[in-house]
């Protein structure tokens, strides 16, 4: 697999799309200069092959095909841009009125949007066009009448989001007029989304016009690409060989315009949603060896410490300043070690880096040994993950897959080292171990409270009886009583199973109740480490002192 690209494709595709559109636009603009003949009146004998006077021959009426091709760009672009502008204007109006006024206006408008969205696009356009006539303007209006709903819905959702923004709320509180707030704060911010929708509608409009024209519902007085294809088709161009100059050029011209809009639209969508554009989201653990055989980890305790980290340096991608700047520490066997630091101190990055779970292309340097074996390679990390090192990830609320029962998710982990039926029994046993009543075992994650989910994740991390349990902020986001019960659980499990535990947290006071060893981190560096009670009672560094003196208020904010 190739490495991650520096930039997302949006920019390149967007440029390419604009080039394609510019090409068609210049054909449309300079049509009279490029084509010598009229696109509608005969200028030669019918059905001529391409020759000097007619670069693409003539059609069944003797009209120059090249002229039709060049002038056709005008129709496609006019329909695309015209219908899109109209649809966007309607959509924007509906979105802003519904999203800003709320109340019954919103109810009616959004119901109308839903109904319009429910109708399939092309059939509705076909039927409307069949009844309302075949002029170019009618076609554009019909297409717009059907396609305003998608922009309306997308923009409406955005207006709802924007009106809750603080500066918008503030402007409203200060009694700014609705129109001014909307035009200053809402409309400007809708631009990226609106342009993405504009291009989308334009794209669909070009294809629909061509389809309508091909089906005989186009403006018969205009030579559009769809009509050219329809004429060629009804004159058996496929059989006479005329397809080479009569069908391929308009067909590919259509494709070029549609592709131009499609590429530009993709770029606009990246602009509207930067998440799409970021390339740092690649996950290395999605590639690699297919299936490792279920292994029973060799039980060979290699002395103390169980985990040793030397001069670990981690940066999120090549060329960026490191987040972890040469960290060394040890995790002694059979004890609870706490890695403490404020958010941004690099504590989670250390663990994720050690286990090969960082997204993107991080650079991890230094040395780390687990049970005497080197850890810092993708393969080595994959060998120990879940088998010998259990990880309780941050954000337990979302760390369970909503689609599977908790029991299935634990059994699945246990299956790495045991056959399925034993894995299922193991899951039941583990859920009991972490204090979940049997009635909850077949529950889905959304049916459980935060504390219960945290317990499930701990059970999951223990599925294969690891030697080391790493818990990343295991109590964050839980209420104080639950925090205490989770800590009691960790300590109890450690005693019962002979585990070694590494807890990562920002909450010194909380972790001091259970930790034996303390490693204090500041800005990617270890400032102090040692026996927890010693460090806590007599910190030698300024930073440790300050950190130890911060107390958490019951609400979790620093007092």
């Amino acid at each position, binding site marked *: 697999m190739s490495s991650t690209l520096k930039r997302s494709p949006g920019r390149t595709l967007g440029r390419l799309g604009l080039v394609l559109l510019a090409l068609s636009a210049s054909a449309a603009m300079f049509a009279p200069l490029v084509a010598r003949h009229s696109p509608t009146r005969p200028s030669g004998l019918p059905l001529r092959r391409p020759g000097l006077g007619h670069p693409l021959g003539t059609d069944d009426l003797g009209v120059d095909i090249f002229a039709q091709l060049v002038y056709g760009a005008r129709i496609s672009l006019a329909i695309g841009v015209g219908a899109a502008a109209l649809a966007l204007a309607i959509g924007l109006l509906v979105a802003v009125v519904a999203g800003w006024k709320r109340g019954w206006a919103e109810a009616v408008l959004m119901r109308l949007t839903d109904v319009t969205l429910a109708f399939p696009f092309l059939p509705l356009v076909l039927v409307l066009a069949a009844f309302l006539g075949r002029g170019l303007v009618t076609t554009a209006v019909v297409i717009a009448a059907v396609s305003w709903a998608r922009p309306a819905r997308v923009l409406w959702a955005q207006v709802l989001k924007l009106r809750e923004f603080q500066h918008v709320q503030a402007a409203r509180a200060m009694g700014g007029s609705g129109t001014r707030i909307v035009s200053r704060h809402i409309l400007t911010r809708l631009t990226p989304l609106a342009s993405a929708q504009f291009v989308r509608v334009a794209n669909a409009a070009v294809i629909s016009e061509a389809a309508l024209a091909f089906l005989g519902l186009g403006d018969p007085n205009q030579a559009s690409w769809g009509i050219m*294809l329809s004429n060629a088709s009804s004159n058996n161009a496929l059989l006479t060989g005329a397809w080479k100059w009569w069908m391929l050029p308009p067909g590919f011209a259509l494709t070029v315009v549609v*592709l131009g809009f499609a590429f530009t639209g993709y770029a606009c969508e990246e602009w509207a949603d930067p998440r799409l554009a970021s390339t740092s989201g*690649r*996950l290395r653990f*999605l590639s690699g060896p297919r*299936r490792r055989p279920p292994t029973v980890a060799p039980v060979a305790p290699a002395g103390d410490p169980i985990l040793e980290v030397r001069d670990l340096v981690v940066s999120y991608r090549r060329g960026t300043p490191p987040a972890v700047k040469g960290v060394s520490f040890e995790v002694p066997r059979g004890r609870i070690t706490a890695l403490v630091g404020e958010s941004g101190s690099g504590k989670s990055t250390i663990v994720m880096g050690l286990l090969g779970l960082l997204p993107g292309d991080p650079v991890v340097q230094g040395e780390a040994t687990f049970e005497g074996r080197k850890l810092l390679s993708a393969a080595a990390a994959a060998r120990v993950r879940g088998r010998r090192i259990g990880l309780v990830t941050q954000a337990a609320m979302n760390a369970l*897959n*909503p689609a599977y029962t908790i029991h299935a998710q634990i059994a699945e982990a246990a299956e*790495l080292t045991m056959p399925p039926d034993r894995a299922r029994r193991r899951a039941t046993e583990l859920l009991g171990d972490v204090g979940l009543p049997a009635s909850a075992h077949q529950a889905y994650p959304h049916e459980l409270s935060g504390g219960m989910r945290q317990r499930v994740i701990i059970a999951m991390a223990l599925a294969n009886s690891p030697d080391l349990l790493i818990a990343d902020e295991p109590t964050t986001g839980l209420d104080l009583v639950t925090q205490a019960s989770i800590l009691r659980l960790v300590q109890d499990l450690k005693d019962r199973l002979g585990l070694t535990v590494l807890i990562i947290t920002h909450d010194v006071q909380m972790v001091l109740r259970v930790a034996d060893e303390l490693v204090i981190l500041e800005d990617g560096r270890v400032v102090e480490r040692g026996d927890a009670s010693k460090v806590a009672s007599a910190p030698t560094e300024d930073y440790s002192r300050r950190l130890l003196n911060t107390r958490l208020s019951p609400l979790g904010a620093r007092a």
Partner: protein
Amino acid sequence: MADISLTPTEAFGHQSDSRWSGLVPIGRQFLRALPLAALVLGVAVILNFALPRLAPGDPIDFLVPAEQANAISAEQREQLAGSYGLNGSEWEQFTRYLGNLVQGDLGISTRHGRPVTSLLAERLPWTLLLVGTSVLLSTLIGAALGFRSAWRRGTRSDVRTLTGVMVADSFPPFFVALLLMLLFSVQLKLLPVFGALPGTEAQGLAFAFEVARRAVLPIAALTLAGLGSAYLVARSSAVSELGEDYVTMAAAKGLDPSGVRRHARRNALVPVWTVAMLNVGALFGGAAPVETVFSYPGLGRLIYESVLSRDYPVLQGCFLLIALGVIAANLVAELVYPFLDPRVRRPGKVGG
């Protein structure tokens, strides 16, 4: 031993497993989808009544083939108006129209002189064959490519596939149909050009084979037409699932790459399913250009013929059937969500 039991606050959000009967969530989804379905049907019925009357000119002009327009007398016009339900006040016309609709009477085709319903019944199976197969294929292929792109996001391979699918998606479906016909029927002479049914009296398997041979190219063109949307939605929903914490957790608990991908894929299926059902609705009449190229006797081709011959009763019937098709696809989509997402199946309380 420490007390590790659940604290009251922890247990608060928990809902014990109350063994929903499988039918409850389906019924709930059905009720949820019903208002929109009713609204869509209502709008379709009203549009159907209003469109010929909104159209420029006398509706009778629409009903009479252009070449006979001058040949009929005022008396004949009256008669025609009567036979098409165009006499009396607008309200009378509307109630009569509704009455007929309820009885399943969609009128008589002006071109074929047969009941519209029998024409629709004749064409519907062919469209279902094309639409069903092509949506199935485009969803399977599109989703497979989209997921693959998502796993390789940001790499050259992802960009290549993305660009390739966008290019393929930009070919207008009827142009693709023409190109396919050119290549396979005209140049290589491998596949028949027209229609759906073999001319010969083939029986059994041979018959099925002949029907399949005639359906291959239209299905290929329609599959390509639906590929882009399936690919794009699969890619973007898988990408957004990959950002979720449960994916990292799946890797952390030791699953191999295919296991981790399975977790993300399972949740990315919901939008893929939604788009597949949207495509079913869209292709119901939207296959018209492709069916026309291949003279395939489906609903789309019927629309085309009716437009050309100004067979407005048939056109109205098609429109109504398309609306019904969309409503059905929508309902099916809703009814399947509970199977795809347990949060829909068992909307329990989320505890904190």
